[in-house]
C-alpha cells in the first residue's frame, strides 16, 4: 500500500521510498523508512494532502505520495 491510499485517522509506518530526486528530498525532510506517518488534512479540492511524519508536518500531492510505500500500523476509530 502507498501513502496516497491512506485515509483520515489511519496511522502507518513508512517502509520504502521510490524515485531519485523526490526520494532524496523526502529523506532530507524527514520522511524515512521506519517513521510513523498519519494523514492530518486533505486540501479543499481533494489534493494535496498534509501528513504528520516524525516531528514534521508536510504537504505533498497524491501523485508524489504514491512513491512512498507504507504499512498500516494502528487503526483508530474516526
Amino acid at each position: 500500500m502507498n501513502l496516497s491510499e491512506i485515509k483520515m485517522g489511519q496511522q502507518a509506518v513508512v517502509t520504502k521510498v521510490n524515485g531519485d530526486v523526490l526520494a532524496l528530498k523526502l529523506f532530507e525532510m524527514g520522511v524515512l523508512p521506519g517513521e510513523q506517518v498519519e494523514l492530518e488534512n486533505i486540501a479543499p479540492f481533494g489534493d494535496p494532502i498534509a501528513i504528520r511524519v516524525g516531528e514534521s508536518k508536510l504537504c505533498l500531492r497524491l501523485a508524489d505520495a504514491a512513491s512512498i510505500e507504507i504499512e498500516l500500523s494502528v487503526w483508530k476509530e474516526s
Partner: protein
Amino acid sequence: MERIITVALVGNPNCGKTSLFNALTGLNQKVSNFPGTTVEKKMGDAMLTEKTKLQIIDLPGTYSLYPKSADELVTYEILRNKSETNFPDLVIFIADASNLKRNLLLFTQVCDLGVPAIIALNMMDVAARRGISYNLEALESNLGVPIVPINARKRTGIDALKQTLIHKLPRTHVTYFGLENLDQAMLNELSQVTDKRNAYAALQYAINAKELLSEKSVRIKEVFEKYAFDTWQFQEEEVFSRYHTIDKVVKISRIQSQDNLKKSITRKMDAILTHRFYGIGIFLALMFLIFQAVFSWSAYPMDLVEYGFAWMSEYIKNTLPPGVLNDLLVEGILAGLSGVIVFLPQIIVLFFFIAILEDIGYMARVGFIMDKVMRPFGMNGKSIVPLISGMACAVPSIMASRSIENRKERLITILVIPLMSCSARLPVYALLISLFIPDTAVWGPFNIHGLVLMLMYLIGFAAALLSAWIFKHFIKSVQQNYFLMELPGYKLPVASNILITLYEKSAAFVYGAGKIIIAVSVVLWVLASTGPREKMAAVTTKYEVQMANLTESEKNEAMIGGISLRRDADLLEASYAGQFGKFIEPVIRPLGFDWKIGIALLTSMAAREVFVGTMTTIYSVSGAEDNLDSIRDAMLVETNSQTGKPSYSLATVFSLLIFYAFAMQCISTVAIVKKETDSTKWTIIQFVYLTVLAYGSSLFIYQVFG
C-alpha cells in the same frame, strides 16, 4: 583596532532564523549583492564587544547542502567557496528543538564542509509542549560543539549566545561522516578537478556541479563514470548514515519522552483553516478584509500626509523669494513627491497584513489550499505566495519565487507576477476610481471604492492565470515535477518581526521610489516649463496682446486670472513635454488618451506611481491647480480642446485603468526579471507580451465603450 567576525546564520526553513537575525541586528540590516555576482545577501551588524563587530549574513533556509531550488543554491554557494571574501568565520546553526533529528542533518553537512559552527537551539518551548526536552550538556559533548538554548521570537538567550561567541569560539570543526568506504583514488581526482582539499567538500561540489552548475561538469562526469560512481545511491547512503549517527546522539540526550496524545493546536487550527468549505471561505474573507482595510483604514493618515504637504508647499511658496527655485521646489519636487508619499499608509497597511500572515504560518496553508487550483496553469502551490505578495511589490515577489524547485513553474510564475496589481498601482487606481465614484458611496457596510479596487485586483489575477495557462503550452520542461512543502506550526505574531518588515518595505518605497520620482519630477518640470523658443514666445506674445487690449473695466481679477490660466495651458502644450505628448498622441488616441496622459505614460515607464506625481505636476504647471488635494477636481473639469467634451470620460478612465493593470511599467521589475531568469530572451518576451496585452485590452475597451 576593530575586529570583524563574519557569521552566517544557517538552518532549515521555519527554524526561526529570521527572528534571530532581527534580534541580533535590529534595524541595522541591508540587502545587497555579493561582489561580482547576482547572489543576494541579507547582512546586518551587531557589536559583540567594544572592539569586536559581528557581521551577520542571513542565508535562506535549506534542508541539505544538495540544493534543489534557487534559494537553497544561494546558501550552498556561500558555504562552499572558502576564497570568497564573505566566507563566514563561523556558522551559527539554528536548530528547531521540536524537530531536532531532521535539523541536525544539515548541521552535520555544514560541519563536514569544514566551517566551524555553534548551535543555537531554538523552540525548546514547542518541544516541551510535545513532551520532549534535552540534556544540553550531553548533547554538547556528543556533538562536540557549543550549544546555546535561545528563544528567537521572545528574544531570550541572545546574550548567552553572544557570550559563547566571545569565550567559546570554536577554532576547529568536527567531522560526522567519513568517506573511508569510498575509492580514495576517485576522491583524489575529484579534489584536483574541483580544486578543494577537503574530500567531502570536493565530492559534494562535484555532485552539485553535475546537477546544477555547468563549470567543470564534463570533467566531473568523466571521473564519476570512470569509477562507476552512482551519485544518487551515494547521497541516499550519506543521508541514512548521518541520520544513524544523529539518532544515537539524540536518543542519549533526550531526557524525557512521553507520547503526547493531545491533538496539537496546529492540527486543530488546520482542521478549520484548510477545511473544504471554511478554509476557502476564510481565505476569501481575509483577502476581502485586506482590501477594505487598505482603502478605509488608510484614509485618515492619508489626509494627514496631504495636509502636511499642502502646508509645506504653502510655507515654502511664501517664504522663499519667488523665482525659478521656488517654482521648482513647489511645482516640481514637492508636487511630485506628495502625490506618491500620500499612498504610503496604504502600502504599509497592505504589507502589514502580508507580514502577519507570513509570520504566523498562514501563508504556507494558502499554498496547500491552492496547489490544485494552480496546477492547470503550469504553476504550483508555492507560486501563490509570490503572487499574493506581488500585490505589494513585484520585485521581492519575483525573488520569493526562488523557492519553486521546478524551473518551468518558476519561470511561469515570474512571467505573470507583474500582472498582480502591486502597491505602485494603488495611487493610480485610487485617483482614477475617484474620478467616477464619489468617496462616500457605500453599498451596505462596504465602501464602493474598495469593491471596485478589489475588482481591479481580480482582473489582474485572472489575466495572470490566463497568461500562465498560455505559457504552459509553450515552455518545455524535462525536470521532474513535484510539490513538497513543510507546514510550520502556527505561532503568535511577533511585533518586532512585523515592524522590521514594515520599516524595510516603507523605507525601500520612500527612498527607492522617492529617488526616481524626484528625478522624474525635476526633469518633467523642466521639460514642461521650457520649450522651443519661437513657439513659447508666440504664446507669450499672444496673451500679452490680449492683456494689453483689456479695457479698464475688464481689468478685474477674474478676467486676468482666466487669461493667465489659458496662457499657462497653451504654454504647456508648446513646451517640450507637450511636444512629446503630441508626438505620441496618434498612437494612444485610439485608447482614448490625450497628450497629457501621453506625458504621464512616458514618465510611468520608470515606475507606475509616477503617474500621479506627473499628473499633479502637469496640472500645477498649467496653472489649473495649486492645491495638491484636488488634482482630481482638475482632471474632472478638464475638457478636450478639440471636442469640448470632458477629457476623462468613463471609457477613457476604464481604458486607462486596464492599461495600468497590464502594462510593464517598472524598470526595477525588468531588472530583477533579467537577474532572476538570467535570460535576456525571457525578459524581452515578458515586456512585449505585457505591452501588447495592455494596448490591446485598452483599445478594445475604448473602442467598444467610447
